[in-house]
């Protein structure tokens, strides 16, 4: 009983630090079971969606056209603008407090390949839908976590089965998820076997990386060779974060797995909700339990690491032996310190031990550090002697008439959004594009 108590204690600290960090996160509801969607970190969007959508088995057919309202002129402009306004508002509600997020992530994707996955309550089948969403998830995940790695493990016929080795290349992972015939569901799933397999494949990882397991679980049973709580304790000890997306119903053990390891738990109600809760796991998890380091003022340990940025040799260069495999090759990367040739980055140089990384990999995360200031909606044109005629970025001409549809908050009736620094006007489309994709204001150039 003693270790269990310590775990409970740990969880309390955990949730407290959560609040101090995230600010707007609700208190972790201890009462479970009442609602299937007691997921705290869920965004407002997910919550609103969950409320208005019915369970898959309750809905006979969907009437997607009902949600879009035409205006008097029969155009859909109002509906589209309303959707955009919602998007803008959601962005403005993003947490203002600083959050620490893990950058170098290691994730094992645990797929349920048991007979329960052939159920047709999600179309076409749970299995096909899972594969499709898993592929989209992998693409999006690598886009946001360029330094991460994903491995794939399947659960079927009572054993855990390694489907894909841990890899940093999205194409490798996608390839092992695309062979549908190899993954045909059969038998019973075994959570314990599969988690043990995933755990062992992550045991060698260095401490600076996160270890995560994401389980997509369709079955309501698990057949385990031993006590799964021992496995759970081992995962807690190894600081592995387990998240579960259940397709059928909430199981006590899957809830425990998530709660004790600090992961997220969600039950998918229908196809759209399944995708929502799966994709909530794409952004790096907020670093928690920071407060343990001695109050909110204490800074956690951080080190400067020496890294080298290599020069890439082209295919046409004279071939030479590489330092890592002693293969004769033309292409490769030169270590900036000892000029040894290595085949691939990121790696540690085999000769001098310098960590060699490609600087674009690092640069992918910089937009988190230096975000673009949100543009202000221009709500009043008074006092403007010379308003800009066209969008500063894409040169689209601004309309001079006032749009009556856009009366909601955060929208400009002129369709103009102004950068607080360079005072240039941008159209709504560029506003979204600049903040979501480019992360660099075209007016200020930073």
């Amino acid at each position, binding site marked *: 009983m003693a270790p269990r108590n310590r775990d409970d204690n740990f969880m309390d600290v955990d949730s407290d630090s959560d609040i101090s960090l995230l600010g707007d996160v609700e208190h972790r509801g201890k009462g479970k079971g009442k609602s299937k969607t007691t997921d705290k970190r869920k965004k407002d969007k997910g919550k609103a969606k969950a409320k208005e959508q019915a369970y898959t088995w309750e809905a006979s057919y969907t009437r997607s056209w009902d949600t879009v309202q035409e205006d008097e002129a029969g155009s859909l402009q109002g509906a589209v603008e309303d959707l955009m306004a919602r998007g803008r508002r959601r962005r403005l509600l993003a947490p203002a407090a600083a959050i620490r997020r893990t*950058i170098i992530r290691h994730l094992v994707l645990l797929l349920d390949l048991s007979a329960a996955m052939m159920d047709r309550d999600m179309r076409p089948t749970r299995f096909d839908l899972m594969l499709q969403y898993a592929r989209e998830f992998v693409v999006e995940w690598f886009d946001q976590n360029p330094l991460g790695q994903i491995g794939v493990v399947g659960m079927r016929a009572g054993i855990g089965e390694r489907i894909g080795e841990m890899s940093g290349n999205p194409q490798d992972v996608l390839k092992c998820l695309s062979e549908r015939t190899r993954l045909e569901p059969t038998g019973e799933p075994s959570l314990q076997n599969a988690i043990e397999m995933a755990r062992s494949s992550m045991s060698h990882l260095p401490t600076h990386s996160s270890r995560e397991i994401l389980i997509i679980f369709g079955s309501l049973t698990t057949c385990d060779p031993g006590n799964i709580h021992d496995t759970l304790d081992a995962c807690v000890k190894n600081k592995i974060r387990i998240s579960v997306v259940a397709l059928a119903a909430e199981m006590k053990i899957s809830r425990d797995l998530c709660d004790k390891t600090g992961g997220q738990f969600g039950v998918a109600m229908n196809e759209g909700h399944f995708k929502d809760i799966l994709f909530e796991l794409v952004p790096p998890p907020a670093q928690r339990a920071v407060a343990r380091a001695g109050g909110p003022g204490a800074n956690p340990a951080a*080190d400067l690491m020496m890294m080298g940025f290599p020069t890439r040799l082209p295919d046409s*260069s004279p071939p030479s032996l590489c330092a890592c495999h002693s293969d004769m090759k033309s292409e490769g990367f030169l270590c900036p310190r000892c000029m040894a040739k290595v085949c691939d980055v990121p790696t540690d140089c085999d000769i001098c031990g310098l960590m060699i990384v490609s600087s674009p990999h690092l640069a992918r995360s910089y937009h988190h550090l230096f975000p673009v200031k949100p543009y202000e909606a221009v709500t009043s044109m008074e006092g403007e002697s010379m308003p800009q005629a066209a969008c500063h970025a894409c040169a689209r001409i601004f309309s001079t008439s006032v749009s009556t549809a856009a009366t909601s908050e955060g929208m400009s009736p002129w369709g103009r959004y102004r950068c607080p620094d360079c005072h240039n006007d941008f159209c709504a489309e560029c506003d979204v594009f600049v903040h979501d994709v480019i992360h660099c204001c075209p007016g200020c150039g930073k």
Partner: protein
Amino acid sequence: MEKASHLSVIVDLSPTQWHLSAQTSNQYPLSIETFLSQLLAFLNAHIASKHENSLVVFGALPGKSVLLYSSTELLSDDVPSLDANSYLPFKLVDSTVVQRIMNEFDAIGELEEEPSCALVGAVTKALCYINRITHPSSTTAGVAEDPSIVHDPRILILSVSPDLSSSYIPIMNAIFSAQKLKVTIDVCKVYGPDTVFLQQAAHLTNGSYIYLERRDALLQYLIMSFLSPTSIRKILAVPKQDKIDFRAACFCHKNIVDIGFVCSVCLSIFCQPLPVCSTCSFLSIHSNDSMLLAPFSLLQTHA
């Protein structure tokens, strides 16, 4: 049948660099007049190669970036007078581009110190423009009737300025968004030393980076390497750069470094070890209670 292609040309118009380029002490002096006449011939060739081809020209001037020409809308009201000896679309491009460059140069005036060229602004504007024409929205009627949906948009950067290391992060952000939009970035280095960031831009977007060795043959370089759309380049042997330099700029002194010190919290790059990371202000000390902390994490702030 070949689809219509879109080309955004970004011209680096730094007066100082063009002055240096035109000096006769260079092996192949190239003045901006010669450069413009060769560039206009290239732009005309792009328009002529297919009727639906679209063209946008941006200029990167000291401290600001401007749209010089856009084929989808007329920027100036004064349509040049009809001339029996010239083809109107060519005439339109030539006169608009030259006229606007002259206006901008006149507006610069006498400056003590020339601010750095706004290349990043021009690139981001080109990306916003491409985003607009490749995703015609239903909210704007003017774009929806545009019949040609662009397939492989390209950006050609004609650079004369050296690397501006303070714009490292924005330029990398622009490169990643170009990757997302599937935009190819080509770079032609007309004058000055190789630029590391533009090399990376061309490499990461499958474009070509060409350093002009014979600057008197600019038009030939342009037509042979940059005129063909990406779909045809698979068949042609378009020259690519040989080495790609993956160096980065440090955050503290804006030096371009090959070995840097990287903060394990926010991945900021520094050229020398610092006691405190200036970006995320986390102390680089070992804590006794580091058990629960993963040092690789990121401080995210929303402005």
